[in-house]
């Protein structure tokens, strides 16, 4: 009898510890990624092209050396954000990730893409038809096919035409 209460406490604390740690992993790692990008000098609401991915330049796990990346950090708690990027000459995509690492939006940036941009708003502010709901910090990522240095240079040149601006 005297061991029943500690046994129940053991099981309950194990279950709760498992639940909270497991569900805290994505947010913790995404937070570390934000810190890394900030330390690398990537300001919020600005598209920044990454150098070609090599063992020396890689910043996050499993980068693809065949792609040209550009990244924008944003936070909807300071207001809605408008995100867009031009189409390219080959395969490309613009994807948005929430603070739990979920890929909540993808747009095709390949030749002939009709993508004109997306508004990202907090749930309470999402009154705009077609706007994406995202509460808090997010990461927008452009990937473009760039298996050569020339292709990487051409993909990088498109970053200046991409938008990641607060609205209003």
């Amino acid at each position, binding site marked *: 009898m005297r061991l029943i209460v500690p046994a129940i*406490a053991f099981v309950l*604390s*194990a279950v709760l510890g*498992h639940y909270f740690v497991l569900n805290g992993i994505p947010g913790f790692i995404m937070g570390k990624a934000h810190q890394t990008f900030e330390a690398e000098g990537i300001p919020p609401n600005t598209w920044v092209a990454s150098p070609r991915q090599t063992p020396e330049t890689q910043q996050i*796990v*499993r980068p693809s050396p065949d792609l040209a990346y550009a990244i924008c950090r944003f936070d909807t708690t300071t207001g809605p954000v408008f995100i867009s990027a031009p189409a390219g000459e080959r395969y490309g995509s613009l994807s948005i990730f929430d603070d739990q*690492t979920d890929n909540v939006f993808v747009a095709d940036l390949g030749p002939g893409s009709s993508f004109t941009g997306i508004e990202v708003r907090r749930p309470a502010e999402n009154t705009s038809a077609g706007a994406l709901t995202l509460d808090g910090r997010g990461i927008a990522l452009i990937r473009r096919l760039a298996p050569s240095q020339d292709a990487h240079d051409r993909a990088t040149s498109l970053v200046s035409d991409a938008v990641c601006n607060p609205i209003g």
Partner: protein
Amino acid sequence: MQVVIRLIVALIFGANLGALTALWFGGLISGGPTIGKAIDINGWRSDWSIGSKNANPYVRARVARNGLLAMRKEEAVYFTKTEDDAGERLREACTYRVSGDTYPAEWWSITLYDAQNYLPKNDDGRLSYDQTAADSFYAGGPWNFLVSPSAPSDPSAPWVSSRAGGQFDIMLRLYQPNGDLLDDPTTTLFPPRVERVSCDGETS
């Protein structure tokens, strides 16, 4: 007093056990099991819930640790292989021949990563092989390349460097996969073969 002490000890040990098992099942401690609707085609493993809201917390934790910013399956699917076709762990000491053909997707690439999920720290400039290179070298037909810690004797032979890779894996990325692949991957995808050629100078 003893009851309180037992209770505190139980809470501490329980919480620590729960946290450790979460880290293990979530892939932050190596060797943990994979939980989810995993796809396994000849040792090439994937999970269609990667990147999606439908991912269970174990898959989401593993993706955060091993493939942060991975896209959902409609845009890209990811297959990882850690063993050769004979079931032996891929390792730097061996040379492998990877061969394949076309895939039901817009574009594909195969990249080598070390056990820490990073590109191996070598300066060989041979980190991956992709459809563009295969189309160029093999004119769109069946292709193959070597994975080895040093350049092959034939300087024109396609290869990917495993130097400084230790125990590594290779990842097949299929961008904009077609609907048939997403609906029925096990009968639609014929993934690359990974044949061990030699280890430490001995031909297998």
